[in-house]
């Protein structure tokens, strides 16, 4: 608002040449403002704006161009049990007893006490919802006017370094521990430089196009896709062979089907920047 006001006022005093200069400086100004806006949206909508950028894909071969990701919004936290309960109450076809097997297997919300009750104690309310299928996660995000993040968006956002620690150490430390009976609340792992929390260290997360990863035994004969990753040459095609955590994520994704539910697999939503 303020910027527009300035331009309008300035227009009266400056020639076209000046206006172009001013336009550029307003643009620059806009950029610095946007970082403030990021903080604001974090506080308000529970989402942060992830800036446009590129990253080196995990399984593209070394000659491949970097993957470009366009700016988007992402939830700061994974969706909690309490939030998911609101969705189920508003859309009873997604309750445990009503959901179609086409959309969720028999483990759907098995950690809940009943269709519309999470648990007797409130312990689980703010832990991330798990045991939800891809269809359920997609439906939740749609209900919120959002969508699931794309695989590339998720990987890009998850690459951001946590504030004060070594990302690989956090992840491997997490992998080495069994799942606790009750998952910790969202926000218990450190946030990364985009202010996203729990991208690693709490749960696995669904992505929109998780089925774009193929690492089955038949990847030599069948899918042309990702042969760079696990074919006869071992893992020579992978860009960072020491990235065990990424190996685990991609292998896990390739093992999923859209109606599967897993007791440490949840999700968070994303949104386009209009």
């Amino acid at each position: 608002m303020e910027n527009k006001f300035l331009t309008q006022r300035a227009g009266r005093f400056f020639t076209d040449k000046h206006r172009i200069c001013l336009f550029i400086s307003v643009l620059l100004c806009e950029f610095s403002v946007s970082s403030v806006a990021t903080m604001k949206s974090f506080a308000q909508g529970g989402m942060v704006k992830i800036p446009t950028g590129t990253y080196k894909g995990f399984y593209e071969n070394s000659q491949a161009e970097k993957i470009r990701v366009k700016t988007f919004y992402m939830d700061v936290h994974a969706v909690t049990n309490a939030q998911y309960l609101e969705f189920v109450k508003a859309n009873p076809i997604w309750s445990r007893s009503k959901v179609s097997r086409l959309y969720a297997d028999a483990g759907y919300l098995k950690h809940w006490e009943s269709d519309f009750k999470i648990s007797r104690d409130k312990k689980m309310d703010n832990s991330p919802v798990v045991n939800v299928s891809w269809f359920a996660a997609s439906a939740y995000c749609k209900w919120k006017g959002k969508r699931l993040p794309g695989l590339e968006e998720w990987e890009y956002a998850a690459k951001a370094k946590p504030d004060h620690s070594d990302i690989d150490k956090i992840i491997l430390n997490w992998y080495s521990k069994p799942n606790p009976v009750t998952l910790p609340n969202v926000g218990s792992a450190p946030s990364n430089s985009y202010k996203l929390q729990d991208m690693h260290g709490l749960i696995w997360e669904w992505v929109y196009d998780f089925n774009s990863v193929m690492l089955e035994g038949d990847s030599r004969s069948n899918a042309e896709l990702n042969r760079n990753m696990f074919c006869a040459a071992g893992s020579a095609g992978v860009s960072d062979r020491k990235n065990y955590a990424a190996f685990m994520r991609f292998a896990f994704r390739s093992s999923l089907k859209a109606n599967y539910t897993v007791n440490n697999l949840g999700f968070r939503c994303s949104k386009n920047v209009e």
Partner: protein
Amino acid sequence: MKKIIACLLTLAFVAIYSCSGNKVDVGKEPGPALPPESVYNLETTWEDQNGDSLQLKELRGKIPVMSMIFTRCAFACPRIIADMKAVASQVPGDKKDKVVFVLVSFDSDHDNAARLKQFASQMQLDDQWVLLHGDPEQVRELSMILNIKYKKQPDGSFSHSNVLSVLGPDGVIEGQSEGLGVNPEMLTSKIEDL
């Protein structure tokens, strides 16, 4: 006597009424509810190679053999179509008019009705074949249901797994084969059982 006539008349009325009532019921109800795991629960609408819109549940009662392709695909797609033709040639006689071959395109940007029609004639696919396209979201959803994996490449082509699915009359996946050049008997034996 009057009583008997009245009785007969009443009976006749009841008979006619219940009969016509039955007829209306048959017209109204397409059959029992779909099984929960039926692919026909998907509500999305597709467009076929003739430009007609189609929901998958319109295939109810048929035996669809389904896969996903894109028309600019040079290698795997002609081969998967060859595999489907192999199935076609071995379908038992009494199932021939029930089996329908369905190809759904990954490529929402390029594959429209006209392109699909051209592709069908290029591949010599007769009117037993239905070629469909839709928006990217419904394509992704269907791929999830059919357990087909795919990824759009930077050059606009698609990498994908090759899965053939046979659906029963109610749209439940009854059999799947994965890979290229699979033995058609795997699927034709399923078709025989349906």
